[in-house]
């Protein structure tokens, strides 16, 4: 059984990806061997305030127990406490997601201090989305780069007691951060080279990697096969495929 830590619902404005209902998404993931998934809604990426998309997310997953909602919070907005409170009232939460590059704030911003404290109080995990697309293929007018490694490092240094999951991070970025920080895990959808996991494990422990497919932007089957086809010990595969996510998110 696989657990996918990077899935989205909703349409993406720049490419014709399937706009699935919750049950359709759960069925699609199941055909690729994924039994549970942490799901956000693409609408939260572009809306001026993410709650309309989060409401759609909660409604969509209500009858799909395989889909675990991960609402997006924009802590740069003055109402972030209200966003968080409404999300917590809407469903039992395991984590929230932030998109600093799409929501235009730095990871050194002052508002992140109380935000991180609030997550700790609520016992919520944080998924920090580094990127959603290969920068080379973005819509021509969308000049948004991945969150730079020095920014990620600054964040990890600033909040040493928080363990964060970086989604959409490149293999090279994981390896740059690995020697100096132990308070992050990495989702693997944007980690790719031949024998990727085999090459990563000596530099980064399997207990801090988690399967992610970036469905529907990337091929679910292709990304799941990255783990299935990897020549790594069965125990490492089990950790990356499900056990780490189960432990981290208390699933």
């Amino acid at each position, binding site marked *: 059984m696989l657990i996918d830590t990077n899935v989205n619902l909703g349409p993406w404005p720049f490419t014709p990806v399937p706009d699935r209902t919750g049950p359709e998404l759960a069925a699609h993931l199941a055909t690729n061997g994924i039994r549970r998934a942490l799901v956000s809604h693409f609408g939260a990426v572009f809306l001026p305030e993410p709650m309309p998309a989060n409401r759609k997310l909660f409604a969509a997953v209500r009858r799909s127990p395989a889909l675990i909602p991960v609402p997006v919070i924009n802590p740069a907005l003055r109402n972030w406490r209200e966003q968080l409170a409404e999300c917590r009232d809407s469903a039992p939460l395991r984590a929230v997601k932030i998109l600093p590059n799409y929501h235009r704030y730095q990871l050194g911003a002052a508002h992140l201090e109380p935000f991180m404290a609030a997550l700790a109080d609520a016992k919520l995990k944080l998924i920090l989305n580094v990127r959603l697309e290969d920068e080379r*293929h973005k819509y021509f007018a969308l000049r948004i780069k991945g969150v730079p490694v020095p920014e990620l490092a600054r964040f990890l240094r600033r909040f040493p007691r928080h363990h964060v999951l970086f989604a959409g991070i490149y293999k090279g970025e994981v390896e740059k951060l690995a020697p100096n920080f132990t308070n992050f895990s990495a989702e693997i959808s944007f980690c790719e080279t031949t*024998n990727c996991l085999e090459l990563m494990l000596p530099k980064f422990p399997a207990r801090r990697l988690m399967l992610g497919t970036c469905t529907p932007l990337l091929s679910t089957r292709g990304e799941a096969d990255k783990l299935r086809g990897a020549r790594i010990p069965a125990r490492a595969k089990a950790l990356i495929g499900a056990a780490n996510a189960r432990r981290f998110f208390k699933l």
Partner: protein
Amino acid sequence: MRIIDVHTHPVFGNPADRVHLQRWVDHGRRHDIVHMIVLGDVLLYGATPNAEQLRKINNDTATAARMFPDYFTAFCYLNPLLGERATMAEAERCAAKPGFRGIKLEIANNASHSAMRHVAKAARTFHLPILQHSWSTVNIRDRQHQSDPEDTALFARRFPDVQIIMAHLTGIGFRGVLEAKDCPNLFVDTSGGFPEEGLIEFAVEHLGADRVLYGSDLPIRENSVTIGRILGANISAADRRKLLFTNTARLLKLNLN
């Protein structure tokens, strides 16, 4: 399912020795890849290698095809900017060696450059298809070196009697597929970038399953991912077989038992 990978660089920053090459053969077989097309260590000397550097790269490629003739087919790497004489000479030298079945072009120049007529002449003379590196220049720019799908399609229209593979489906994107659509001599390989959803289906819909070839860009990408995106694509089993095996076998006249 038997697979042919039309876009690989097993000699990539490593020596073309038996131990190293055997590792790639074993790697490929684990992924059901029964044959690989070796495109050479094309960036070893930068974007515009001279004649001697080309010979060195092509000799390494020839070594792979000679050591594992049942597993590797070679493409001859050329720099069109070296002119007609150098292009024809190196193409002739490679064509005389066993295992060479095509020409590889990288980023020496844009595919619309007038020097491409020399490569077309070599392709015609020695009956070799051309695999042209291509990528959308919308975001990466550098159109002097990079060939936008528009440029590769123009090259195909200028030389309709030459068979051309536009590399990197993910890099050329949806627009690239449409650029290729009206060029029956233009094929597309599926390599390049992360496995973006929907592109395989779009390419099959617009080009037909006969003009889409599986490629991985090994060792830059992961074969399980590049194959998985095709196995997971919403296309028929017959079309999947064409992409993964039949099309490349037919185009390169490979007789694989």
